[in-house]
Each structure stands twice: as C-alpha cells, then as structure tokens.
C-alpha cells in the first residue's frame, strides 16, 4: 500500500466500500461520487500505522461493527481497518504526527551530525506549495521532538492541514546542509496526535 499515492487512495477507498456493500453517502449532483476525507494524507512511499479517515453512512442504524467487518473482508492483506466509530474530535484537532525513520545503517557519526542539525535554532529551506509555488520556511519550529533508538529516529512533527511538515523535507534539508552521504531509510507514520499530544480519536 505504501506505493499508492493519495489520489489513487481515494479511488481505492471508493471501490472498497462498493465491494463491501455498505450504505455510504454519495455526493449529489452531476458527478456523484463517494465522499470521504483522509485526516492527513500519507506521502507515497510511507507506511502508516494510525491513519484516520471519515465518511458518512446513509443509514443511521447500520451496525458499525458489521461495517468494519465487511470492509476488512474486501481489503488487501497489507491494510486493516481497526476501528470505526462516531468522531470524537474534529479533524481540525490534529496537530502532530509521529514518524519513525528506520535507517539502513546508522553510524555514530551520522547520528551526531543529524542531532546537531536538528538542534539548531533555525533552518530555512524551500518548500513547494500546492500550486507549485516555492516558499521559504523555517522547519525547526515545526519539529516538536526527536529521539534516537538504535537505527531509528523518531520525529514528532507538526501535522494538520494548516501546518504540516513532511519528514522528507527534514532529510532533504539535512543532506543539503551537511553534505552527508545519504543513507537509505524507510518512513512509518506511527501516530496522529491532537494539540495535547494525545492520540487523536
């Protein structure tokens, strides 16, 4: 699933609910389609362990546990829906995401350079916005915390529609500034948090 882009993911979900045969709500109008929304879209190549999406059912009394069961039954093996329920918080409450970057090999020297990089007061780099417009941003204030554990770096970054920092941008900036030889790493988003750093529900 990690090689599925966000756009493809929408189509995938629409077909999935159709195979599951659950009574989902479709938009009105000329081009009627299944309406759903991912809280924070996941980048191509990342794995996600705690992804959140919402959609509407047309039947208020439809059993949510049956819904969950049906969706999991028509799912490919590497995706699982683990919970379905009435929203407790608005999607707007999402403020942070936790990422686990697992490096193929992590020398002490590399870890030190990375720590040094992340401990700076400010790192200005270019970010390409939605319409292809490039703007300069400071990534440091958007990094809530970081910690190392063996080959893994855990980052908690700002997330949510207004203000999202992609870990790829952190890496790009790091390599650009330090000219360190790139080390392959896989990225997993392990959690979405609300403003109080509690798991978003």
């Amino acid at each position, binding site marked *: *699933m*990690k*090689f*599925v*882009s966000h756009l*493809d993911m929408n*189509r*995938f979900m*629409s*077909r*999935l*609910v*159709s*195979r599951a*045969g659950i009574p989902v709500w*479709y938009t009105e109008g000329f081009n*009627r389609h299944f309406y759903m929304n991912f809280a924070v879209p996941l980048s*191509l*190549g990342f794995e996600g362990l705690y992804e959140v999406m919402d959609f509407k059912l047309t039947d208020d009394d439809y059993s949510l546990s049956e819904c969950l069961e049906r969706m999991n039954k*028509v799912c*490919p*093996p*590497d995706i699982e829906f683990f919970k379905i329920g009435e929203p407790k918080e608005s999607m707007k409450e999402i403020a942070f995401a936790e990422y686990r970057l697992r490096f*193929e090999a992590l020398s002490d020297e590399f870890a030190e350079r990375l720590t040094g990089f992340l401990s700076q007061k400010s790192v200005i780099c270019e970010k390409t916005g939605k319409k292809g417009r490039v703007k300069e941003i400071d990534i440091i204030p958007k990094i809530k915390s970081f910690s190392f554990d063996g080959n893994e770096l855990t980052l908690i970054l700002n997330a949510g529609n207004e203000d999202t920092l992609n870990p790829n941008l952190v890496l790009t900036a790091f390599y650009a500034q330090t000219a360190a030889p790139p080390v*392959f790493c*896989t990225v997993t988003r392990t959690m979405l948090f609300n403003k109080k750093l509690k798991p978003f529900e």
Partner: protein
Amino acid sequence: MDNNEFEKLLLSVQKPGRYSGGEINSVIKDKTAVDVRFAFCFPDIYEIGMSHLGMKILYSQFNSRDDIWCERVFAPWVDLEALMRERGIPLFALESRDPVKDFDIIGFTLQYEMSYTNMLNMLDLAGVPPRSKDRTDFTPLVVAGGPCVCNPEPIAEFVDIFFLGEGEEVDLELIDLYKKFKKSGGSKAEFLREAAKIEGVYVPSLYETEYNQDGTLKSVTAQNGAPATVKKRIIKDLDKLYYPEKFVVPFIDIVHDRVVQEIFRGCIRGCRFCQAGYIYRPVREKSVDTVNRQAKCLCENTGYDEISLSSLSTSDYREIEPLLNKLLEWTTEKRVSLSLPSLRIDNFSDELLEKIKHIRKSGLTFAPEAGTQRLRDVINKNVTEEEILRTCKTAFAGGYTAVKLYFMLGLPTETDEDLKGIADLGQKIVDLYYALPERPKGKSVSVSISVSTFVPKPFTPFQFEPQITVDEIRRRQEYLKSQITTKKISLSYHDSATGFLEGVLARGDRRLCDVVEAAYKKGCRFDSWTEHFDLEKWLEAFEDCKIDPAFYANRTRDFEEVLPWDHLDYTVSKDFFIEENKKAKSAKTSPNCREKCSACGAACYGEGVCFEKR
C-alpha cells in the same frame, strides 16, 4: 530480492505502483504446492497491459486451477530497466517477485507488432536467451498468443510455441501436456513434437523455409510429423466458456479502468482493411443472461462503477435492446454507469433512448475511414455521408458541439480526390452546424479529424497490396492539411515512419528475426511510444542484416505468391481474399454475414453466425 532492496528500487522510480503488486484480487499461491508456474508477460507498461481483456481472462482461468500459478509481468519502464541492469536485478513477476527465468512457462501476448523488441528485451532482462535454439533446457518454455501470431514469422526464432486463435482451451491442453512431460522427464525436442499435435499449436522450429531467387518464399515444409497447416482454435459456445468473476483492481490509474464485459467475438462486417474482422470469425454471441450475470458479478467483486461492453461493433449484438434494459435494471440503482463504444442508436425505442440519455455523455464519433463513397465501397465500409450528417444534425440539436472522425490514409486505390473528400466531409459538418437554427446558442462547433496510416495486414483482402512509401505518406498528409481551410476543423495524424515499420513486420517472413534482434540490440524498445521510436536504428538494423524493408512493405504480391502465413489456417480461405481483393478493385461491396453468407470458410467450425437463420 529482499524486501528492503525491493523498496529501495521502487522508491527510485516513477510510478512504483506499476511494480508493487498486492492489488485486490491478485492471486498469491504457495509455490511449492503448484505443478506449473506460468509467467504471463505483456510486452508493454502496466497501465496498458492491465487494460487488456485477454490477459484478465487467462490470468483468472489459469489460477482457477489448483495446479497452476499464473503471475503477471510487464515491461519495466526505462527508468526501472536502467536500475535493474545497473544492480543486476532480473525481471520479476508481480505476485511473487521471483525471477521470471525460474518459471516453467513464459507466455507473451502479442497485440501489436511494435511490441516485438520489448519481448526480446524482457527475455534479456530475465536472463533467458532470446533464441529458441539457445534454450536447450526443457524450461523455461517461451510461448506466445494474440493477434500478431497470425503471422509470427518475424519472431519465429525466439518463441518455442505459438497459440493460434482463442487461448482458453488450447493453453490448458498444452499445460497439461507440459505437466506430463515434466513428470516423466522428457526432452524439449520431444515435447515440442508432441505439442505440435495439439490443434492450434504452432511450433515454428518444426517448419523449414525455402526461398526463390527473387527473394520471395518458395515453400514452408513441416518436419517431424508436424501438421502441414495449423488451424486456429475458437471457442464454440461462449455461454459455457470460463469468464472471470474477478478482475485485479489496480491501485494506479490505467487506460481502461473499469469492468470490461465481452458480448460477442468476431465481426459480421468484413471491412477489407481490418484484420480483426477476419481472424476472429465466425461471430459468436453470449446470451443476454450470461452477459448480465457476468457483468453484475464483476461489479460486485471489483467495486468498479463503470461497465464497458466489449466487442468489435456493439450495435451488431442482436439483442442489444433487451440487454441494455436488463443491465439498467440494476446499474442505475448501484450508480454503475455503462459505456457503449461504437453504438448506433438509430433504431432504439424512445423508452430506451430516454433511459440511456444520461449515460451517453461520451462524444460523437464516426469512423468513415475514407473520404469518398467510392473508396468506402473499395474498403467495404458501410457508412454513408447521409447517415453521418443525419446523426450529427440530431446530436447538434440535442446540444452536442464536438464531432470526432476517424480516417485512414494510403488505402488501396486512394487518390487526392479521396483525401479532399475527408476535408469536404469535415466542412459539410461545420456548415450543417451553422445552418441549423436549433444549434446550441453562442457556441462554436469543433470537428476533429484523426488520420492513421493504412497498413496492409495478413488475412485481409489487402494482404497482397503495397503500402505507400514514407515520402508518399508525408506528401498525402501535407496535401490533406492544405485542403482544410477552417480552424473549426483540427487534424491529427500518426507518425508515418511507425506505420512503415509496422507494415514491414506485419507481413514479414522469418528472415526478419535477425533484424528484430539487431534492432533491440541497438537499443530499440517501446517502439509504439513516439518518444522512444527510433527509425534510424531500425534502418541500421536492416542494413546490417542486408535486408531491404521496402521488399516487405511496398511490393505488390501476386495472388500466386506463397505468403509467409499460408501454412497457418485461420479458416478464411485465400481464395476468398483474392475474390474480395478483385471486388475491392472494382469498388464492389460485399454483404455482411447476416445479410448473406459469402462462404469465406469460417463455417467449418459448425457454429456461430454462419448457422443463424437469415
């Protein structure tokens, strides 16, 4: 390849979803629990191969058997190919990611000639020698099917076995024979001789070719007990035929991303340029119930919200109206839309027209193929100007403002007059629009004319005809362009050089194997992609092999000449093609199969349109 290495690889290429596998309804089996592993290769990219109905059918059918695991393989795009070569990663199958060379059978489907170099490149990437004679081990066997196989001579030295005609039965018969040999430990040579006894199986290495002084073919002689002619296979009863209940549903967008529901095979029309119209004869239909049941099942199992009815000419399905009514019973409620390619709606009831009104939002398209009635008679294309203008008139009144027209350039007997006819027809449509009081207010009309280059194909009445030269193609394109005087008409045409090479390969003989191999060694691949097609390299390959491509493309063949595909029996007789060729030259049309049988030969199967009551 371990997971990490695979991920690294995919993260460095465009569209990794082409190679990741794991799609809904893709089939994973325990490789130790199957007898035969079949690598089904489509020699083009994922998005094209995954849109192909034949591959979907055979993939599901093979996998419906417990003893076979069929996996999919597509041509890696140039970015991935470069990385694979650099890192020494062999071609792999999508499901297991195992190297293709470890499979029992490597099967290619050949849909167009311009994919031949991709086939060789895939074999090379797999680490399998391209030439059949260099693969002395029993496995992997290299087999191929698809329309190009009606003249497989230009690739005959690369493939061990060709399947002629429809694959559903013959493929499995061959796999069964393979299983038997694998158990008993027979040799490849013995196996091939045995395989050649199966109807529809062509083993090219068992045929010896001789040539005349003038370069034409003298004879093709069967050896070692192989049949003198190989007859294509067809499925007699489509209602009893296996049809998938599931399609693999891609994550990424592909060319035809929907349920494709076959309604019949073959075509009654007999347009003289159209190979498909002859090699799939006779017409056999599926019943309304079968079509409805299969389409519904596919929608449920895929989650697709669109069905496209598939055949060579939707309108010729005898029960199209009952079928649409039946489909509409459930598709409307399920928000499934129907797309009905090439449907004529002239004689539909008002009630049905009302029902399908909202689903026919696709454009207004016609394929007159030629610009004058005379030339349309030559090619036996049953479309008249009045018909086109009449349909346009209704459509314009109903709010349409865009028309698409398809033509061919370089048809036998074509003159500048015929080309001018193309421009004139476009102009008449523009004039009609502006003369119509009820036309959409304030909008202008757009007529787009798309012109492809005619390529004479085997098993058509035009198989004897010369193709016009590349220079002449360009001249005619320029002339046609000069005849169009309004911006309301847009003109597009195919690359002239591509058509030329396609023409050479389509009617080539076995001597072209060297050229195809030389071209691929020079780096030719993705020849059907304009940005990758390199005529210069191909011309060098011809030169290196001392072969004149014009001999194949631009030469008139006598009716008596032995053609490279004469020993392949697609049941439509050469005599029939000769008669049709003569009629074409005098601009006489032939009736379609439902009007009157022309005794082409395809009735020998004892099935289909040939036995309908007229």
